[in-house]
């Protein structure tokens, strides 16, 4: 179980796709849900959203950005190797509804999380505008898939190397001005989601975000993933990971994500050094 069947790198090798054998999870998973993966005996439990599932083949697909020790360890795993543990599907599936015109906005690796939701929203009959962005052209992922999953796709880069020169929020503002958008789904780095929610609040458009706090068990047992939504403490692993973006305390989330900054840096440097040493 949990063997890597396919693997490829994207965005200049900073992002990696793995297709993993996990029949039980594949049979059950719905858009918006995630899994927790542990590479080996000493590994930590890392949550990743399922970017795709294939119940017939019994596989799930994850797409992750290499940001630290654990994801660097994952990147080193080749086709044929196995994750020691994969747990899921976890979290609430996206609440899908036919609303009319909707906008799906993704930044960075958030696009991988956004893709299955976008596709599902289109499948149930919404008219879907997609807006995706990256810092620069080489870091953009899943453009083709997002194109197929939506009716209209707009691409942005911060440095103007491709598509619209600027942020996804600029394009979204035009869209909100122009169209009668009923729902925005915004997934990306915390600052992006924060500004996106500010913008959609101006227009009074309901906005869903997917939060990525640090997790341990993913079953509501530890409280590590707590986030403040509408002044109340919620556990992202069981109550989320999607929440009403207008109620989320993003500043608290951003701080909590830095809880182990020092330890993460140390672990990463040690890992890279050992890797170089062979």
């Amino acid at each position: 179980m949990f063997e890597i069947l396919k693997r490829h790198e994207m965005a200049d090798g900073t992002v990696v796709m793995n297709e993993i054998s996990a029949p039980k999870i594949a049979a059950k998973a719905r858009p918006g849900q995630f899994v927790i993966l542990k590479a080996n005996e000493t590994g930590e439990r890392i949550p990743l959203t399922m970017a795709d599932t294939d119940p017939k083949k019994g596989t799930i697909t994850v797409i992750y950005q290499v940001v630290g020790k654990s994801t660097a360890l994952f990147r080193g795993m080749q086709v044929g190797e196995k994750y020691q543990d994969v747990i899921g599907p976890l979290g609430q599936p996206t609440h899908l509804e036919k609303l009319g015109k909707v906008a799906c906005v993704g930044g960075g690796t958030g696009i991988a999380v956004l893709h299955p939701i976008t596709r599902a929203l289109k499948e149930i009959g919404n008219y879907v505008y997609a807006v995706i962005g990256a810092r620069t052209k080489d870091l953009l992922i899943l453009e083709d898939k997002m194109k197929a999953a939506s009716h209209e796709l707009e691409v942005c880069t911060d440095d103007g190397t491709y598509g619209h020169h600027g942020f996804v929020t600029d394009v979204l503002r035009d869209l909100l001005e122009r169209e009668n958008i009923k729902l925005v789904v915004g997934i990306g780095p915390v600052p992006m989601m924060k500004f996106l929610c500010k913008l959609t609040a101006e227009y009074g458009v309901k906005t869903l975000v997917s939060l990525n706090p640090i997790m341990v068990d993913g079953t509501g047992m530890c409280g590590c993933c707590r986030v403040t939504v509408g002044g109340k403490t919620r556990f992202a692993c069981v109550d989320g990971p999607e929440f009403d973006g207008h109620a989320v305390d993003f500043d608290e989330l951003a701080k909590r994500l830095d809880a182990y900054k020092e330890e993460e840096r140390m672990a990463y440097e040690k890992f890279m050094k050992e890797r170089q040493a062979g």
Partner: protein
Amino acid sequence: MDEKSAKKEKIPRQPMPEQKPEVRKRNFEEVPLGYDEETAIREAQRCLQCKSPACVQGCPVSVDIPGFIKLIREREFTKAIRHIWERNSLPAVCGRVCPQEIQCEGMCILGKKDRPVAIGNLERFVADREREHGTGDLPPKQHPTGKRVAVVGSGPSGLTVAGDLILKGHDVTIFEAFHKPGGVLVYGIPEFRLPKEIVYSEVNFLERLGVRLECNVVVGRTVSLDELFEEGYDAIYIGVGAGLPRFLNIPGENLIGVYSANEYLTRANLMKAYLFPKYDTPIVRGRNVAVFGAGNVAMDAARTAMRLGAERVRIVYRRSRDEMPARAAEIHHAEEEGIEFHLLTAPKRFIGNESGRVTGVECLRMELGKPDESGRRRPVPVEGSEFELDCDLAVIAVGAAANPLLTQSTEGLEINERGYIVADPETGKTTKRGVWAGGDIVTGQATVILAMGAGRKASDSIHKYLTWGW
């Protein structure tokens, strides 16, 4: 050696050899080192072999205490362990973690004038001896019945059910949400109190008997109870534990460095964060630590923090010493290790810095008022008594509640107003046909032995059902 001569000699209760406090407070190795044979026999000789033994009434699963103690005296260690197994399948665990002072030992007749027989230490001795030197022979199994049982959760209660039913010839599979089996015994109770090797050897024993173990299966998510029935299981036992952290609900609780005990202990124990960076899971290593609560969980958190290098660890508890629910041995060990107790003190809010890390906690002094519904005197705040306590790590250990993940996703399973599963106390039967439940998910956080006792009752009832029908 008969009772009389034992009494004449007035053998004192044999002390348990332990690691010295100064040493052990910085390592994760087990604190008590265990009796050797001679010490165990000497301790066993203290037992009066009462005709109607009070100790047995104090044991929730009625271990035949004089019976196994007599076998120790006779050096029949293998027989002694088999004798215990008839009532208790995890004696190496219970000998270590049962609150003996309010159970078996609390009732022992010797305790009236002298100190009670060290029943827990003796139970641990025979279990350890069997694990280390025993034959490893498997007990006989009945003929296969062709019936399949699913056990959800691999804590002490699920393990008990699995062990009982496999011997009765049923086909048993345990489903566990975590990547390792054992429940609280593995993720909650620290290594220095219950070495994980003991739990794994118990699980391994069950596997050798033929129990299948599937980790990484979150029942209610990966698979539902109804799907398990569809897959052909004839009966299901739910032993998922309490598994929901309780917070204080005071301002500042989401600051970095404020943990639920569940998170803190899971990181430390299950994920082995104390071995970071050899293991990848990090943990905040506080120098100045405050732990809220005074049960076993609080003692475990405080002593873990000390072992992770804290300079100062304080237990903050809103009631007084007499109400502390922890085992006597844990309180004693914590004190020896230099943990400070701030009693009649309650937290009011956490204080943090710009980067969102906890730097202190504002507390209130309490005094004892009238007894509350639990019969304990209710602590009431002393007005204007606020004071600040510095801390860079805070662990909240004020109890657990019922995790709703499984119950919410299951139809026909009645729960009470606090979210615990309603089950018949005699049989463990729930309101859903073919489904039993027991342990912390029925009673709220209790003890290992009670969870096992509930498992035993349920396994008897399941066996009857599989033989005769509901």
